[in-house]
């Protein structure tokens, strides 16, 4: 096979695969803009479908819930990751020979293994159907990856900067916030992106814990499509609304997303 035909086949196969990936997304976007309830594509683009879907599904409420949960989880999660990563990566931790493996195990524990007692215990504590309950679980489950991720970032910093700061009399807090963190912003941004995506896209946890007014956007979308099975165009518009925040971030930060997801995978 000549180099030229090799190159041609290369493009042909990749393009076919790309079309298969794009096909469902493309028909979905076309359906979201269609005037037809069955969602058949049309040249008559109905941008108003997004407004109708937004009001019919009361997305303003569920999007606010999702946004609240996600922002709190990302903020608190990032602070905990920085503190934990700094402790395990720079200061050392009393008992870290036991504690660090225990944290690593946490990356293998899936929600299914703990959801049952979580639900029934939180019910007796009155934490089901509250944002606080879901936020606590998201944060707790995010600690292992956060500590692991930030620890690696802290260890990649040259030790000299900590030693000279110590000579100058900087305490651990000061070293963390004024010396380490400014140097770690790339790792922090990637962590923020990943935890934003994982929290926003969650379905299982909020399906179990949140109902009615407290529904997240993903769960509300599931309910919405059940009610609007015959109005495919509105259902598709609603889907795009819920997917939009992460999609926009992906378009802007695709490199950070891809490398971050890889590093997240290799942890195991």
């Amino acid at each position, binding site marked *: 096979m000549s180099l030229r035909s090799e190159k041609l086949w290369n493009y042909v196969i990749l393009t076919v695969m790309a079309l298969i990936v794009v096909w469902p997304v493309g028909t979905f976007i076309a359906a979201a803009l269609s005037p037809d309830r069955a969602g058949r594509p049309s040249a008559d683009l109905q941008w108003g479908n997004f407004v109708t879907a937004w009001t019919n599904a009361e997305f303003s409420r569920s999007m606010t819930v999702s946004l609240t949960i996600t922002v709190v989880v990302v903020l608190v999660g990032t602070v905990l990751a920085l503190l934990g990563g700094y402790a395990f990566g720079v200061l050392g931790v009393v008992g870290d020979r036991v504690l660090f493996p225990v944290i690593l195990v946490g990356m293998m524990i899936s929600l299914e293994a703990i959801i049952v007692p979580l639900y029934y215990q939180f019910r007796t504590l009155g934490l089901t159907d509250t944002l606080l309950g879901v936020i606590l679980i998201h944060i707790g489950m995010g*600690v292992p990856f956060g500590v692991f991720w930030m620890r690696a970032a802290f260890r990649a910093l040259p030790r000299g900067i900590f030693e000279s700061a110590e000579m100058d009399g900087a305490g651990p807090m000061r070293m963390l916030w004024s010396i380490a963190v400014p140097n770690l912003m790339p790792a922090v941004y990637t962590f923020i992106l990943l935890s934003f995506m994982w929290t926003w896209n969650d379905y299982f946890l909020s399906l*179990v814990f949140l109902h009615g007014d407290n529904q997240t956007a993903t769960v509300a979308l599931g309910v919405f499509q059940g009610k609007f099975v015959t109005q495919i165009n509105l259902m598709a518009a609603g889907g795009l609304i819920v997917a939009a925040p992460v999609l926009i971030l992906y378009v802007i930060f695709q490199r950070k997303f891809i490398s971050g997801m*890889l590093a997240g995978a290799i942890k195991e």
Partner: protein
Amino acid sequence: MSITQAGAAVSLETDDGGSAATGAIITRYRKGRTSHARRRARMAGLLFAAPGLLIYGVVVLWPLVQSLQYSFYEWDGITAAVWVGFDNYLSFFTDPVLRSTLGNVLVLIVFFAVLPIALGLLSAALITAGKRPGMAIYRWIFFLPQVLTSVVIALLFKRMYAPEGPINEALRAVGLDALTKNWLGDFTWALPAVGLIGTWVTFGFCMVLFIAGASSIAPELYEAARMDGAGPVREFFAVTLPGLRGQIAVALTLTITAALRAFDLIWITTRGGPGTSTLTPAVALYKAAFVNPDVGQAAAIGVVMAILCLVIAVVITRVSEKE
């Protein structure tokens, strides 16, 4: 960190330890001071790590222990729980409905793990072959499903598979009317149909993993293969595939556990039906925990899933390292 510091301390001691007694005393003094400072740092470290560790312990570790405890009881979530020993575990393997979930998982593994890895290898090989323009766009497209919410993916494909959906319309357009069906409502086709959604979502992730791995394969190996007259196919099997063993192990671990844990896609598209043809352990767990409460059974399913995930990860890692 601790190893290099200890090493520095030792070399310091041997350097001037023999020369003068005062030197030894100074060294000992320094060592004492640094180990004291280090202990203080480690105490501070514990303090810094404590908030995260505390929440993790309360929200993850403690419920994990409780899951084990729950799994030995029969409990409807309201009345008093009854100790049943290993009954919940036994029924996972003897109850025909629960046992069928394991068979379904095996089918899903083909679609969630085997196919995505094969397609991931193919696309990674094509994208890395030569430095051709436009490859970043393919990578961007193939990875896109990874960032979509599972609910949206489920809706995308509910529409694709609908009786009047794009797939059936495409079949009709080429005259294959006989093949059209309600894909997700068909006892034979529902499971492969749901499985293919997993393939669609996962293969781009595998691809990116393999592209990253391929970048660390020495270019000399490719040059040598080309010198020996290997074409792109032989080159792939002789150089790329062996070079990606580690990445394939990671991909297998993640995708097989994803097949075992499949919930969102299944719950939104089919609810485990028709019948139990697409029921997975996670869907069975959800039903047992929250739909018709048999809480102990649900906990046992969770524990079995956790153990299986752990075993899969350990076995795949061991095998990939041994060869």
